[in-house]
């Protein structure tokens, strides 16, 4: 008979039968074989895998930061000794401390000890937002009333991990989406799916959008400028204006960088010396007169009249098209550092 695959299973003091809230400060205990929900999970594996050790810890003890190194090293020792094929924790449902403990030990085992791990909990458990990005968390109902529904899913995913098989998409395997998304071929076309989705919505059925909306960060408006006459003003544009020939090879879309060019010697931006490489609008007018994108000519006359304190010596420029938000934020932050360190007090940002 083939050698059995091996699992280590983590639960809390309650499921281990050590005690309830009054024993939440109990330290780490190790049991040979199955205990608590591990019993229910293990029976789905028949003879293919067994739980070699069930470990349990009080929810308060494990969540006390100063205790974690001790727990981590005990788990490391156990893993070295057992050499498990998978590490399982929970299900924690919507229990916050238990959920964080399950997710944290799974995260530790997976990333520090290189052993596959899986836990299970409700999607609103606070541990989910902390750990879901790089861990497998099977979705559960809110309370332990859903135990019998969840154990077969947890068992199946644990076995898959132990076998070293590829884990499929979240909706197929039943875990909470991690945010990782990869291109694949669906069994149906986009056209079929969008019509089905609309019909489901019209029929009042629950609809799972395929592209979740992630929240945009809102940027508060800057306070008004107190004294423009003593403020250094800078020109920044996402309209893709660069010196002719695009010396830094800025991209015309999907930007990750920006250019910084001296305009110190210029009274205005001469056409012919500068051009827009932007890939999203008709750049003819800008190429005819770049000052209509970055109004240096107007700023110079305002400075001459003393209406503004001065014009900063550089033009910052990138192409605002197709850039994802993370890259956009990064470009903006780097620009802001450069502007701040130069003592710029106001920016005219022209988009297109």
């Amino acid at each position, binding site marked *: 008979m083939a050698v059995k695959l091996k699992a280590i299973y983590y639960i809390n003091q309650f499921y281990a039968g050590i005690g309830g809230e009054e024993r939440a400060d109990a330290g780490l205990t190790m049991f040979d074989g199955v205990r608590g929900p591990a019993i229910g999970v293990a029976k789905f594996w028949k003879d293919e895998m067994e739980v070699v050790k069930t470990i349990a810890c009080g929810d308060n003890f494990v969540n006390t930061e100063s205790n974690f190194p001790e727990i981590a090293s005990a788990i490391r020792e156990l893993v070295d000794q057992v050499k498990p094929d998978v590490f399982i924790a929970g299900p924690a449902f919507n229990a916050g401390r238990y959920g964080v403990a399950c997710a944290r030990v799974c995260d530790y085992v997976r990333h520090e000890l290189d052993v596959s791990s899986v836990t299970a909990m409700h999607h609103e458990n606070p541990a989910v937002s902390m750990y879901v990005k790089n861990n497998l968390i099977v979705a559960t109902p809110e309370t332990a009333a859903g135990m019998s529904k969840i154990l077969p899913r947890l068992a199946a995913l644990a076995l898959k991990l132990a076998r070293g098989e590829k884990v499929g998409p979240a909706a197929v395997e039943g875990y909470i989406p*991690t945010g*990782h*998304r990869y291109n*694949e071929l*669906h069994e149906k076309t986009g056209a079929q799916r969008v019509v089905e989705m609309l019909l489901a919505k019209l029929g009042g059925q629950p609809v799972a959008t395929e592209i979740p909306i*992630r929240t945009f960060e809102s940027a508060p408006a800057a306070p008004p400028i107190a004294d423009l006459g003593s403020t250094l003003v800078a020109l920044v544009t996402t309209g893709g204006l660069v010196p002719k020939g695009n010396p830094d090879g800025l991209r015309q879309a999907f930007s990750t960088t920006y250019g910084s060019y001296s305009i110190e010697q210029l009274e205005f931006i001469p056409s012919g010396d500068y051009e827009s490489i932007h890939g*999203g609008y008709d750049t003819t007018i800008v190429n005819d007169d770049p000052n209509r994108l970055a109004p240096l000519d107007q700023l110079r006359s305002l400075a001459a009249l003393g209406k503004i304190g001065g014009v900063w010596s550089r033009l910052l420029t990138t192409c605002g098209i197709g850039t994802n938000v993370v890259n956009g934020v990064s470009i903006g932050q780097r620009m802001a550092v450069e502007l701040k360190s130069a003592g710029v007090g106001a920016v005219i940002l022209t988009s297109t």
Partner: protein
Amino acid sequence: MRLTRQYFCVRDVVWSTSTEFADGVLYVDRDELKRVADSAAQGIAQVDFDIVAPGENARIVHVLDTVQPMVKVEGAGIGTAYPGCMGDPETTGEGVTNVLEGLAVMESAPLPWESAAASSGLLYPRDAIVDMVGPIAEFSPFSHTFNLVICYSLVEGKSSAEYDRAIRTCALRVSDYLARATVGKVPDRSEEFTTDNVNPDLPSVVLVWQCQSQGVYASTFLYGHPIDNLVPTLLHPNEMLDGCIVSGNYVWPAFKVPTYLHVNHPILLELYKRHGVDLNFGGVVFSRSHNPTHWHKQRSSSFCVKLARCLDADGLVMAWEGGGNAAVDGMLTIRYAERMGMRAAGITFEFGGPDGTEGDLLVDSVPEANAIVSGGSIEKSLVLPDVARAIGGDCFRLNKESGGWFPPANRSIAFDTTTHIYCSGNQAGHSRLHAAAY
């Protein structure tokens, strides 16, 4: 309106001494085809042809528009298709149309990059790539069709408008010529399209189809006229099946929708398939995407929803051609629809970075957009393999803004996004590509 499409299934295309369609084989007289093509020769020095078959280890580069060969055999516009571009711009969508199913006429041309012909950062064609096999084969519909590729050599010194018109006219004439081989023949199958027989117990659904039109090389034509200033309008789906929309949009290969997909619009065909079964197909609201300001976008998208309301729509499918700019128009339309008590679902490509975790997945979204189908992420790196042959040119034409990069077209090449892959934005829902959530 009733339209019968007679489908003639193309199982092979071979050069011959006369043009004829028999037993699923399209025999083509190459010399005659050349004469047909040359008659549109303003701006074109010469054309050559290539036949590329499904399953062939081949790559087509410099792809512009792709056309479905078809011809009207009964009803207005008889003897041609694509009214307004070919023939009079009279309302189409009734009678009988012969379609060469499984055949595509594909334009390939190295359009000049010089400022006289491509004066703008936006308005020049970026290299569009079709692979018949391998990792990107499923991204476009054309790995499944026989592709008669027209390879154009251009006269120097013409304007972009002249090249654009000559290339399109030539392809449509070639398409007409080939489709005429079916006249008088018995089709493999016929299908009748009508939105009559409305079942009052079923919800009414319309398609809102928004297309890019920003100037030469980024145009969409409605009955032969660019839609730059189009007020959203109403189309019978049969008009689209008969070619009232023709694409002249070559600027971003991933995001463009070729004529072939306007006339075989996968969402439109899906809605037709379900008409009378679980929905009533109420019609198509057609508008321009890429409206220039938020003000214009509000005006256009609320107008689209108004038209849907006039059709008594209970729901709409929102689909658009183009990138982030167009997404704003689409999202506003979804918002207005939901606020008016309609239900809306949409389809779009997404972002998300190499592993999908980076930032927001869409350039724009509204809370009402809670039923969006993923057409795949464009921010995925790709390695295209070596191919046995490349059609359309010996070299890719890439990175114009950095002075150009021209690696050999038949060799392996890596990209960090899918933007050069023809139709990979999946905006008409033709493909099964999607970003799976892990």
